[in-house]
């Protein structure tokens, strides 16, 4: 078995299903999205089989691809292993790994131990939290390949300079140590340009999510991908434009998958990717304009650079490399104050009535943040937050009826509170 082959086949099945059974409530552009992702997985595999440079990375592809590498994200793959998660859990639990760590770590390690992904030339985690960094370092040890580990933390002048120094050092060392690797600045700039173009379009999409009733189905809100889609496939920008036009058309027509919208919910952190809580949302006629899984504003949120402008930070026009480096510091692993601010801003802008905080068990960042976010939402917007104990792909740990009951009770309460809020205005 090869992870990339299976993943490509699953995506092809999805494309077929979308084409054979079109659903007016879901984006037509999903077909193109899955086609691209499938082709990307297939071309990754081919590049590796042809003997090309191969790297495990998460966020450093902006550096590594222009150096000639095909990049694979173990943690990204860990989110998408529902098809084989039981086997991976058995494997890592049998190997004595802890069960109390997030399932991104557990699944990532499962993929590595299973041998379902080819051995890379190097491992270089970029935009990772501590747990993911250790996953990548452990991977490098298990697979006996070199790793390049960036040391970064919160966004300050010092950390910016420190990270820039490391990026330059990283390029120098890889060029020296990995035969055939050479940084291609033109390719780097071309990819940055595509990302920036996509970001502009995504910010326009973000504005359209304010429309009432919501033009996006909850399933599609979960499906939304960041602007990196524009740089991983030649048709990436075409997809982003198609998505934009599709949503604009819906807004212009007043179309909504939930025309009798009574509530607007934000889903945060993660989701039960094997289960379905959508029926509970439908029962309460609750729309879900946005799934906040990371630092959305800087990626594809409502306001570009709403909390951070690297040019303003540096006091001059940033270089492309500085902009890219700055984006590495935009990660869920940073101070929770950024999460708190961003979630509050999005709830305010999108007129959200409640936040479902599907906390990723074993995650040291999102678990403590729940309390602060809850307090802020209560104080500033008078809306509640539901913390749900969550696992992305661990069906054994997931309690379906418990989750459904709690969501059901929460949405009932959100509606009652909404009526009180509206009555007091």
């Amino acid at each position, binding site marked *: 078995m090869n992870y990339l082959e299976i993943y490509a086949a699953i995506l092809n099945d999805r494309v077929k299903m979308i084409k054979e059974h079109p659903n007016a409530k879901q984006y037509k552009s999903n077909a193109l999205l899955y086609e691209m992702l499938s082709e990307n997985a297939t071309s990754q595999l081919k590049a590796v089989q042809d003997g090309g440079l191969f790297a495990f990375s998460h966020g450093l592809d902006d550096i590594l691809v222009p150096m000639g590498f095909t990049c694979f994200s173990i943690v990204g793959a860990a989110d998408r292993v529902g098809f084989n998660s039981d086997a991976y859990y058995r494997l890592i639990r049998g190997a004595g790994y802890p069960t109390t760590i997030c399932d991104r770590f557990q699944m990532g390690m499962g993929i590595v131990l299973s041998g379902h992904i080819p051995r890379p030339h190097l491992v270089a985690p970029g935009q990772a939290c501590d747990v993911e960094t250790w996953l990548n370092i452990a991977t490098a040890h298990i697979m006996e390949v070199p790793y390049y580990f960036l040391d970064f933390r919160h966004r300050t002048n010092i950390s910016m300079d420190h990270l820039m120094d490391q990026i330059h050092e990283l390029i120098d060392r890889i060029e020296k140590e990995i035969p055939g690797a050479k940084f291609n600045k033109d390719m780097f700039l071309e990819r940055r340009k595509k990302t920036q173009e996509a970001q502009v379009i995504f910010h326009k999409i973000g504005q359209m999510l304010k429309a009432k009733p919501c033009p996006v189905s909850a399933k599609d809100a979960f499906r939304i991908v960041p602007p990196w889609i524009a740089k991983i496939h030649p048709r990436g920008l075409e997809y982003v434009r198609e998505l934009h036009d599709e949503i604009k058309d819906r807004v212009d027509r007043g179309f909504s998958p939930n025309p009798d919208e009574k509530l607007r919910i934000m889903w945060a952190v993660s989701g039960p990717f094997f289960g379905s809580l959508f029926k509970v949302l439908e029962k309460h006629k609750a729309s879900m304009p946005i799934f906040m899984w990371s630092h959305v504003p800087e990626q594809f949120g409502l306001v570009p650079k709403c909390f951070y402008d690297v040019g303003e930070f540096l006091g001059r026009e940033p270089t492309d490399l500085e902009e890219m480096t700055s984006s590495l510091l935009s990660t869920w692993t940073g101070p929770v104050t950024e999460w708190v601010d961003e979630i509050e801003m999005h709830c305010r802008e999108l007129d959200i009535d409640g936040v479902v905080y599907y906390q990723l068990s074993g995650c040291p960042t999102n678990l403590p943040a729940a*309390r602060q976010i809850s307090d802020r939402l*209560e104080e500033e917007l008078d809306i*509640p937050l*539901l913390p749900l*104990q969550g696992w992305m792909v661990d069906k054994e740990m997931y*309690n379906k*009826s*418990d989750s459904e*009951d*709690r969501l*059901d*009770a*929460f949405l*009932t*309460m959100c509606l*009652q*509170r909404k009526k*009180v809020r509206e009555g007091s205005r």
Partner: protein
Amino acid sequence: MSKPIICGMDAGLMTLKIVLLNKAEIIHTAVMPIETNTTAEIAEVALNESLAANGFTQDDLCGIFVTGVGASEIHFASRILPEASCLATGVNRLRPVFDGIILDVGAHKAIAVQCKKGIPYKVAYSDRCASGSGLYLEMVAQLLGMDITEIGALSLKSTETISLQSSCAIYAESEIISLMHNRKRPEDILKGVYKGLAARAFSLMIRAGYIQGKSQVAAIGGTAHNIGMLKALEERIGGEIWVPENPDNLGAIGAALMGTGE
């Protein structure tokens, strides 16, 4: 003549609570143990017995509104209602325009609901661990060879402070056995158990928005009968807790009232 009777049920893990309303007046309440029956079987028996005891039949029923952990098993229910809203509605019926925290420590789980002017505002649930629930107390009573109804009063005779370190019922069991082997007195062990339970309940209340010294607290559910638990909770919060005259039926009352549209 329209059908006058509305039935509310709260299906817990150990007991089923039933309430009949006649034109919004409570005319009947009962608590029935589930034991080895299915929840649906007990619900049907409870319904028929309750109706007959008041001279009604199922033809007089306007609807059956259910809540609780076993609600989905009652296949003949008109509607399943969320527990937090039912508890808030039930408590609000007894103490109108309730502002404060409702704490329900049932056999299966614990839930804290913050109410503002009778409306549920924030809910916090215990985790899946049994050590925050009534089942845990059942297990402790069994270990000590006592009946669940005896342990609350006995804990009040404690003279030695014992802290149980375990936050898990399974580990707590072995810790209690060790304490028994060390010849610790049952009343002191029980006091430690209640202290631990109260600490967990307090944390739950905080998550639901409890403010020490400001929020009033209503204790309902099975453990609201337990004087040991109540005293430990009052010591933890440094204030008094209100316990309704019949703390078991609030969920069922709330379900029935929500069925009337209240």
